[in-house]
């Protein structure tokens, strides 16, 4: 917890410094005596520096130990990867097919049976087709199968 909080505070500090530099150098702090496009981001970053330092100071009395267990890290990796794979697959197979396949794969990876995964794929495909494409008229990117 302590190390994780310290790392997060450093990330916030770096983010704040980036925002400050960009606000002053690229966006413009003032315009005709009034706040320019960089004015608000600059002050947001200044306050972010103050609170990030506060977090660093507070982190001193936090307990040690990891914020993740094996299981939490595994679930974070599974769902984040599933999201990225959905995006990549959608470019080739269309979004509907991609969502249905990823749903089936997730059922398996999260501990479901093969039968449940196989049933999930067409169920998600049909339900999402009816809900999004028919009812809500959202046009999903299409794949080689025409949907």
């Amino acid at each position, binding site marked *: 917890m302590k190390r994780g909080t310290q790392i997060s505070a450093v990330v916030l500090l770096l983010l704040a410094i980036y925002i400050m530099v960009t606000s002053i150098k690229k966006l413009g702090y003032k315009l005709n005596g009034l706040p320019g496009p960089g004015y608000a981001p600059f002050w947001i970053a200044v306050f972010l520096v103050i609170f990030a330092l506060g977090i660093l100071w507070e982190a001193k009395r936090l307990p040690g130990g990891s914020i993740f267990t094996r299981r939490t890290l595994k679930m974070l990796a599974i769902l984040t990867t599933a999201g990225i794979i959905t995006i990549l697959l959608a470019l080739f197979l269309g979004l509907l097919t991609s969502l249905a396949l990823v749903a089936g794969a997730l059922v398996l990876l999260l501990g479901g049976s093969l039968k449940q995964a196989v049933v999930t794929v067409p169920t998600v495909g049909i339900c999402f087709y009816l*809900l999004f494409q028919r009812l809500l008229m959202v046009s999903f990117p299409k794949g080689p199968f025409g949907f």
Partner: protein
Amino acid sequence: METLELLINGFAVALQGQSLLACLIGVIGGVIIGALPGLGPSTGVAVLLPLTFGRNPTTAIIMLAGIYYGAMFGGAISSILINTPGDSAAVMTCVDGYPLAQQGRAGAALGMSTLASFTGGTISVIIFTFLAPKLAEAVLWFGPPEYFALMVMGLSTVSGLTGKSPFKGMASMLVGLALSTVGVDLVTGKPRFCFGRPELFSGIEFITVALGLFGIAELINLAAGESGQLKRTEVKLSFRNMLPNKEDWGHSWPHILRGTFLGFLIGMLPGAGGTIASFISYSMAKQRSKRAELFGKGAIEGVAAPESANNAASVGAFVPLLALGVPGSATTAVLLGALMMFNLRPGPLIFQQAPEFVWGLIASMYVGNVMLVALMLLFIAAFVRVLDIPVHLLVASVFVLILAGSFSLNVGIFEVGITVAFGAIGYVMKRLEYPPAPLVLALVLGHMLENSFRQSLIMSRGSMSIFFTRPLSLILLAVAVAAVVIPAIRNYQRASASRST
């Protein structure tokens, strides 16, 4: 008298077939989402928001509001049956609800929670009906400096009071504000932090972020916490065994009434909300009860008090949202974003500019509460079956629903990427105890905050003194500072005390 006429007109809107259907779908969806451990009202509203795209704004918001207070009702189901709260506002319901279920009184506990929620919700809607328009009238004279100060106060109280560390709350809020600056600056036309991506020119949509922070992050948490199926107390539920007996009522009614008024007041405060309301209501009930020794072991009033308070708080939260245009909680922040997506700008003028919408929404809350009490008493056995859904099926289906919803927003894969990224960030934030609500609230309010700030400086020809020479603005800013400084000092004192012992 005028209020009653407007309310009757509202009922004409709320009782139309389309509105009734939207309300019914909303409350059923809300109860189901509320009953599922880990998925609270903010997740429910965010996940189901894309399903309202292209609909009539009034029916869409009626549905989303139904999800909000429906989730408050549903939160008690898992608290009582599996000792796991559906959302944080239902934590206190576990304390006496689960022991009651173990004693074979799950029906009475669920019945009391339903009736207490109904009473809390309905009395609060009545207060809301008469209070909100008056408050809106009172703040009509607000200028940009007062609005700026009000938003700063709302943001800092939410950030200071949510979570364990006010520093982390403030940092979360500031990241939200920084994200709100992404996009083309409306005054100068200059792109800010767009990295040459045209998708970012119009800014980052709050809903893509909310879907990640509230939706995907909660799903990761749910998947990481439970495997297989949730184990619930086996109970036989029928209409008859859900009705509390005379003795139960005798013990509970004063606590229900106190919880209602307390919950409504706390719900109106930014950052407080249903969780704090239910905690305070429970502890007051325990202090004032003649049988305090039963609390924690299965006192029926221990279920009634927090449930009336958290439902009253969910209605109270609509007062600042509609009357001031400043949300005080994560769910109302998502609702504000939804209203803005439908080109409705909450604030004092909305009562004059869109009376059909406002009064239709208020009337729908009366209707929704009646629907909820009927659904819960008659079909509770069906809602309880939701807990039998295996976690892997639930996580997989809600996950792809979130991605599809994110895509539907702008019909773009880029948005899906943002949602996935914020899902991972949200989960890390959760583990590190950074509250996500201030980030979403700041993202929603960021544009308005910057506009009010700039307008104020134009009024004062660039002088910051305008914020400190107008009394109300000064008071609001002082409250904003206090909301961060006081919890920080308390944290420091607590840490010093624990070090010395």
